[in-house]
């Protein structure tokens, strides 16, 4: 009886070990896929308009299927789909992955910001989009990348959003101007809203000859 108990315990321990090994492999494969995918994305993002090799999409799709609860895999896959395609169907799928990633990790401002980008590209810029933009800005007020995305999309939509969303956009533009004025000025210029960024230069202890100041002064000089 004692021997049977020992065997039972050993069998249970073996089963637990096997399960843990399986899970480790599963997460390992998904982690490797997301790391490789991120590396490939980083490499390709340095080439303007560069395409990402399609096999990373396959790897990440498999990883997402094996470990559906891994937000990194889903977010990397979403980015890869959007990067590689201009097809609305791919954007829809990317949106699904980002929503799933947010369900797993709702506190990431990056994921909210990325979801805002995908929704904007899908033309889905209703109240849900505004809420996503505000969530991103509330969760990552000091994250430069989030500042840039919220400033970019926010300035694009500035005249169309609610006063509350506009206030959130203003806060992010102001924060971005403190952190990286050149980047925010470039975004504001592209969006034809240099004034929205330049007004946050006021009161900043910047040398009069700084590039940002010059850009804003040239804007004021333009009739």
């Amino acid at each position, binding site marked *: 009886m004692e021997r049977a108990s020992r065997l039972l315990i050993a069998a249970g321990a073996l089963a637990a070990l096997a399960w843990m090994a399986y899970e480790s492999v599963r997460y390992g494969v998904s982690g490797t896929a997301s790391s490789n995918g991120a590396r490939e994305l*980083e490499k390709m993002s340095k080439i303007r308009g560069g395409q990402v090799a399609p096999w990373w999409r396959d790897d990440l799709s498999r990883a997402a299927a094996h470990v559906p609860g891994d937000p990194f895999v889903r977010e990397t896959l979403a980015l890869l789909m959007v990067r590689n395609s201009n097809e609305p169907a791919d954007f829809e799928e990317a949106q699904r992955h980002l929503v799933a990633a947010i369900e797993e990790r709702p506190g990431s401002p990056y994921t909210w910001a990325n979801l805002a980008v995908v929704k904007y590209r899908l033309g889905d810029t209703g109240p849900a989009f505004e809420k996503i933009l505000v969530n991103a800005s509330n969760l990552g007020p000091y994250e430069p990348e989030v500042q840039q995305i919220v400033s970019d999309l926010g300035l694009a939509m500035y005249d169309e959003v609610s006063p509350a969303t506009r206030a959130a956009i203003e806060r992010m533009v102001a924060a971005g101007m403190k952190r990286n004025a050149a980047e925010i000025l470039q975004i504001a210029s592209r969006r034809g809203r240099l004034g929205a960024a330049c007004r946050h230069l006021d009161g900043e202890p910047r040398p009069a000859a700084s590039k940002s100041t010059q850009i804003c002064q040239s804007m004021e000089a333009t009739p």
Partner: protein
Amino acid sequence: MKKISVFLALLALFFTDLALAAGAVVTSTTGTVSVATGQAAPRSLRTGDQVAQGDTIITGVNSAAVLKFDDGQVVALTSNSRMQVTNYQYNPQTESGNVLLSLVSGGMRAITGLIGRRAPSQVAYRAATATIGIRGTDVTIATSQGDVVATISEGSITFSFEGQTFTLNAGDAVLARSGQLVIKGTAAQILAQAPAAIQQAIQQQAALIAAVLNAAPGSQSQGQQGQQQGEQGNQNGQGQNNNGQGQNGQGGSGGGGGNASGS
């Protein structure tokens, strides 16, 4: 945890980079401008948005859009226009690529960029059944119900229509109507004979000069030429409205344009 944050930041960075990937950036919009990708419903297009290969840009009534492509090419669309970026490839390292823009309806002005300057044969525009090849060009094209007008402000083009090909130089213009002889003349002559919708599309380009100059700062003289052309067109357009010439005009009636010969 820090590693995760860095990873996430990188992911976000990819997206900001994505917003500036290959294609064109909208430098100015007026009125209602939208973009459709494939069969998807059109979505609003705003200043600073990106346009890529496969996108169709649509302007509404009293609307306009100016796009600047990665190679510096500038395209201005007037109201009620539809233009598809049928093909746009550009490699900034080698400054090479190819461009095919298809004007489905309305009017566009195109000032070629690096691709057009380095390899003109790699740039082409389509309007209805006409194909336009360029040689360092500032060209305005308008199409309505299968009729096509092209006016050239700078450089030259090859204009192919229903099996005929013509070479046109700065100051020339051409009117092509399906099943009829192609008419070649000056911009004023051709505009006088063009259908009203085409006249309107070309005249509207004059209002876009400031936006075009802003997108293509080096094209000041071209802009002035375009303005003159627009003003000429305006005068001719008024003339046509008064006397009705040109609507049925062929072979140079009204504006004095001659029939072009195919090459």
